[in-house]
């Protein structure tokens, strides 16, 4: 359970997030969308403890964590896939996986634990790059590594900041499918995503952030029923209809 209540945060001299409130139940996916610079990453970073909250509450599993050191928050089960990958440039893929693996931590409720073998099965390209260093990977490979790194920490709360950026469409679809499965296993997921139709595919709720404020926060089903306000807010033509079968990767998902 992740609760954000009247959260304010910013950098140096200015405030970026203004009284943001969100509530993500275990087993559900909360999507956050919004224009560039709206404060999505700031929100994610504040929850992870990387940006200091100036006021407001952040609760994880009922425990107030705002103001804690980032490593403490990570220890309480928060996993982060940051925007821009941020893989360790001088560590090899194998070392990344070794470092991130936390087999001693209890696996996510309901699901089996994440092992190196299981992540490599999910992201086979990494398996053939095990001895490459972070800086030698292609953009997409780095993104895969960032996802693998977060999963191996056996998170209970997963913060995904545009996890599909740079992934080929099929792989992106598979990642979304995976996230969906994780949520079904009881994980709490906060998903930042630019492409609304992709977010709506799997999310239970959609929130829109505008200038650091939550201006829209509804269940996906409701948003689908009445797509106009959302579409207007993001000036997208229309909200895509629910996919017929969520588990099949749709190869040409982007084809207009």
């Amino acid at each position, binding site marked *: 359970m992740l609760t954000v209540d009247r959260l304010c945060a910013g950098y140096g001299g200015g405030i970026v997030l203004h009284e943001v409130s969100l509530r993500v139940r275990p087993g559900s996916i909360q999507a956050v969308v919004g224009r560039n610079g*709206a404060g999505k990453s700031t929100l994610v970073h504040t929850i992870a403890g990387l940006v200091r909250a100036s006021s407001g509450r952040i609760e994880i599993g009922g425990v107030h964590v705002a103001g804690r050191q980032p490593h403490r928050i990570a220890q309480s089960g928060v996993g982060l896939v940051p925007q821009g990958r941020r893989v360790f440039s001088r560590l090899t893929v194998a070392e990344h996986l070794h470092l991130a693996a936390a087999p001693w931590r209890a696996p996510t409720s309901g699901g089996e634990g994440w092992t190196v073998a299981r992540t490599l099965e999910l992201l086979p390209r990494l398996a053939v790059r095990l001895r490459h260093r972070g800086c030698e990977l292609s953009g997409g490979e780095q993104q895969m590594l960032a996802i693998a790194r977060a999963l191996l920490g056996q998170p209970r709360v997963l913060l995904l900041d545009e996890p599909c*950026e740079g992934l*080929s469409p099929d792989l992106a679809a598979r990642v979304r499918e995976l996230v969906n499965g994780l949520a079904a296993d009881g994980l709490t997921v906060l998903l930042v995503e630019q492409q*609304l139709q992709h977010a709506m595919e799997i999310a239970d709720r959609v929130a829109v952030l505008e200038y650091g404020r939550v201006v829209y926060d509804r269940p996906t089903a409701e948003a689908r029923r009445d797509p106009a306000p959302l579409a207007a807010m*993001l000036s*997208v033509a229309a909200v895509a209809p629910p996919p017929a079968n969520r588990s099949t990767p749709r*190869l*040409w998902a982007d*084809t*207009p």
Partner: protein
Amino acid sequence: MTGLLEAQDVSVRYGSLAALDGVDLRIHDGQRHALIGPNGAGKTTLLNVIGGSTRPHRGTVRFDGRDVGRLGPAARARRGINRIHQRPAVFPTLTATENVVVAALPRVVGRRRWWPGGRRRAAQRLAGPLLDQMGLTAVAAVPAGHLAHGQRRQLEIAMALAGRPRLLLLDEPAAGLSAIEVGRLVELLQALPRAVAVLLVEHRLDLVYALSDTVTVLRDGQTLAAGTPDEIRTSPLVRQAYADGVA
């Protein structure tokens, strides 16, 4: 008609891994060419070879009829090859405006560019409208290191345009941009002077089809197919390539 850019038989090896293996590419003036393929196919590597930051093991790169294989990235930029990077690369302590000014300096034209400070002033005049086009006016005075991810990408596009490119190399320009920004980007690219050639790497195929005249599909460092967007869209080979890229 000879092409603006002719890359022949380009190969790049990293240890035992062939990132590019005998790739040919030809782009003529004003052509909009897209490069697609699964992750790790070698798209960025090919852009690096053309931009001069990676030296190929084999093969030649000719630009505007001359062999540029021995030139570094700076010299190629001065000849008109400008690019944006897959990971937005900006000058973090410089403001957005200053970023654009720096990018514009080498190829700026202005009547007084030989006067002291003249070049800088000419570049400065260019920066405002470019930032405006990218929707960055509000953050023009913010150091680039403090911009959001998507804003950095937009800034880098503005920088690439400020260099008055003849060939624009775009590595996933739309990644991380919101719908509004993507729309703006499409408009901008479509409004580019016809003489500017574009080489676009993108995973969003809707954009590829909307923006490109021709498409090359790479996979495992080799050219899998090339043709018009319509040909590529219907080619079963290409679908196969993507599917295998996942498994």
